[in-house]
């Protein structure tokens, strides 16, 4: 089977004043296409940092990140941004949506950024909004939605432009248990249907149970949990 996402020797540290704090230390892992992986870890263990490196939002101190045959760490910032725009879908814990755009516009945003012609973009966005069950909220502004609904819109937005890789940073962390479970099962269902690769950071065992594989991030290293 082909390796779709691979990183090795990944090291990232932050300075707090003069004190250097190592967050990732020679971390390495490999992921196959279509695989759903959950990464567990304590708060502050570096989970978000890892996702930021993989998406190219941040650059590592050293190490390599290969996504679909390209070494992200060697690309200049602008290239990484364009790569992310085309290939990666993002879901955050909260405040995912652009408040000035309607639900429909939020979902079409990645298509628009990728210069998909407007009629097609609209149609596709509608389809995805339909698949998260919010087709009737097209012209609503995000602040009028509940937390669970907002996360479902974010889900549609993360998937709408057919990304190779979906990165989710504690997507249910801000939701109550029942809503969280709904969002989680929807996320799992859609990624499988679309045959996407999902990398999800969470500290909920419940959320992790949807994954094919579970890794744990501790002391800057990724170790297999299940």
């Amino acid at each position, binding site marked *: 089977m082909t390796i779709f996402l691979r990183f090795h020797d990944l090291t990232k540290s932050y300075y707090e004043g003069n004190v250097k704090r190592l967050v990732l230390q020679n971390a390495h892992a490999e992921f196959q296409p279509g695989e759903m992986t959950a990464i567990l870890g304590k708060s502050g263990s570096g989970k978000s940092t890892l996702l930021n490196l993989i998406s190219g939002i941040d650059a590592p101190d050293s190490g390599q990140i290969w996504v679909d045959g390209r070494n992200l760490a060697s690309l200049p910032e602008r290239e990484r941004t364009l790569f992310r725009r085309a290939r990666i879908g*993002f879901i955050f814990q909260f405040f995912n949506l652009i*408040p*000035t*755009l309607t639900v429909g516009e939020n979902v079409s945003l990645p298509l*628009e950024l990728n210069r998909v012609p407007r009629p097609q973009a609209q149609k596709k966005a509608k389809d995805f909004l339909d698949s998260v069950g919010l087709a009737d909220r097209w012209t609503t502004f995000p602040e009028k939605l509940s937390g669970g609904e907002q996360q479902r819109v974010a889900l549609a937005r993360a998937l709408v432009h057919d990304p190779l890789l979906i990165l989710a940073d504690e997507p249910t962390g801000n939701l109550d248990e029942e809503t969280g479970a709904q969002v989680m099962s929807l996320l799992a269902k859609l990624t499988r249907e679309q045959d996407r690769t999902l990398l999800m950071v969470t500290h909920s065992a419940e959320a992790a149970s949807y994954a094919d594989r579970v890794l744990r991030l501790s002391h800057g290293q990724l170790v297999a949990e299940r």
Partner: protein
Amino acid sequence: MLSLRTLLRHPIQFALMTLGIALGVAVMVGIDLANASAERAFDLSASAVTGRATHAIVAGSGGVDETLYVRLRTDPQWRGQFESAPTVRAFVASPQLGEIPFTLLGIDPFAEAPFRSYLGGGQGFDFQSIAPLLTQSGAILLSAPTAERYNLTPCMDEFNDSCRLELSINGKTRSAYLIGLLEPSNDFARRALDTLVITDIATAQSLTDTAGELTQIDLILPEDYDTAALTAALPAGNLLVASATRNDQVNTMTAAFRVNLTALSLLALLVGLFLIYNTMTFSVVQRRAMFGALRSLGYTREQVFGMVLGEAALVGALGACIGLGLGILLGQGAVQMVTQTINDLFFVVSVRGVQIPASSLLKGGLAGLFASLLAAAPPAWEAASVPPRLALSRAGLESKAGVAVNLAAVLGILAALAGGLILAIPTRDLIVSFTGTFAVIIGLAALTPFVTVTLMRLLNDPLAALFGLMGRLAPRNVIRSQSRTAVAVAALMIAVSVTIGVQVMIASFRTTVTLWLDQTLQGDLYIAAQGLSAARLDTPLAPEAVAIARSHPLAQSSAVVRVVSVETEFGSVDLVAATPDPLLDARILLEGNPEHVVREMKEGAILLSEPLAARLGIDSLNETFPLLTPEGWVQFPVAGIYADYASTRGTIRMDIDVYRSLWKDDTLNGVSLTLLSSADVDSVTADLRGQLIGFERVQVNPSGALRDDAIKIFDRTFAITTAMQLVTTLVAFIGVLSSLLALQLEKAREMGILRALGLTLAEMRRLTFWETGLLGASAGLLALPTGYILAWILIFIINQRSFGWTLQMQMEPLPFAQAFVLAVSAALLAAVYPAWRLSRMQTAEALRGE
């Protein structure tokens, strides 16, 4: 402690806020210092010359016959009843005294002691040292510090070149000799003597060519003295005036000018106030959660309120301190400009150095501090009303802002209407007029958010269709950020509309004056003697020079003018006696019948200048106007009111023949020639200059040159206005910059999401510029009508009430277009730094959440 730390957490915001208030205070203090310096210089020279005199006997330009003084001293009717002292006064300048105007004061040392004690420390003169003053003609005294400043030393025994001064007096150069120094006994004496040249009466009369005449006789009348009896007993042509009233009359003439400057200087502070309000509001909103937490920890409302006010006080105090320093620097420049204008338009005053009265500094400092506290009070109140522990959602906040937009618009319209009503009050009180003006401006500024929101709603669809994502995001972001940017944009709107208002006013003024000059300067050539003031004809012309000019073979016709000051019941005014010019009167006559005016003037009627008529409240022509002639008071019929932009002091026009027969004075101040149509103006100018070369300070100018000079003086007058208006715009710019930075801080998370979705840095920057460009456009758009209204108020109300001038409003598209461009480019420029900072913003950090 907590306050200081909060401020230091956002050092740029803190610095900008401080700078904004500092600039506001600086302009205010600078102008105040300049005004105070000019006023004090005037007061000082007035009180130095007046001394302890309570009254004076004056007689217009002709002077008081010195025999009257002798009679006052010897006639049993008056002898011993009051103190009296003769004086001869003139403005002089000398290359040895730096060419600045000095007052030549001719006195009788034996009569002086009760009047000007500073001349001799109250003991009278030390006669030993001043013997030469009485015995040698041309002998003068200066104060020791003045002599030292100009490196002059008195001659001991014999007059020679080492102590010779060339004084130019009334267009002639005379030699004078410094024979002694006066040691000022105290600070007042030192400053009083600063620009005085003291001499004996006889010397002064010979230097000024006024043998047998006194400028005035100073009197110290006992409190209950019967002034009416004295007045009645005076020979015709003489007038008893109270010294204080007279000085006041002169001083109040410049008051309008000074009030105008002060009002303009307050504008910068007002804009600074907006800046503080904006920044403090932002910082409060940002810390809502913290205030909630503090409240739940047991902080009272008052404590939270005090905390925010404390921060503002800190900023205000710091800004005020910096502003005072800057203001003193600014005052140095401003005092030059203010003095120049007063000399051009009003009277001769020499200001040496800037006075720094503690009161100006105190006023400026307190204004800065209180402006800060005032501006911070609403945000502090908001902070205090955060309920304990509850973190309010932003959405709630924004919908509150939505209500505020409409409320502000309604209140704004009401304020503007109230301002309009205040302006409608018929008064010459400038404070009232400016209050109305400020109310109108602030009222219209309150419409800014409403206009912005409406404009963005309108633009939303077209922009989205044209520019895609950017076009869709930008207007909505602008609407959403109202609560943060509205006040800054309103401040920008004010600054830009003031730019329009002032520019249109200046342009209208300039056009009116140019037109007026064209109509007034009908001759081809003008011959006059250069005096101390560039704008006034106050120097006599030698009769031989007049004869040469008038007899030039290429002259078709000539006109002459005599300018003197005459006494009226309202103080002294300039009397312009001239050859009547039918064409001229028909064109610049505002009131009166142009067909009859020339004839009426030949029969003895006079014209009043518009500012004078306005000042005295004369609008009907059925009145007569009394003037003091050498024969006594004469009632002159008023034939009309004419436009005069050369002086705000007010002038009276009279037929030269009428003047001559009443005043028995053949002196002239100017001649104008109309040349034969075949003549070349330039060659006649050169020719006459050659012929008149022997006459000192006589100048021959083609009307074009004169016109250019007048326009130059005009532009000089408004230089300070333009400078202050620039500072106001700068403060507004700082406000926009500060609010953009604040906004960026607040939107970090949102921008992080956009970055995560794949917007490149370049796209993020473009979005920033789009947003600020739209903000600038909103400010610019509202500034157009506001600027127009302001221009109208300035032209038809403020100017009219301040100076009595009617101006033609000159509407040109250019100032409006420029102002709009100014608004947009100021906003875009303010976005440069925030846009540049985008690259340093850590997306990862922004995404880490609250």
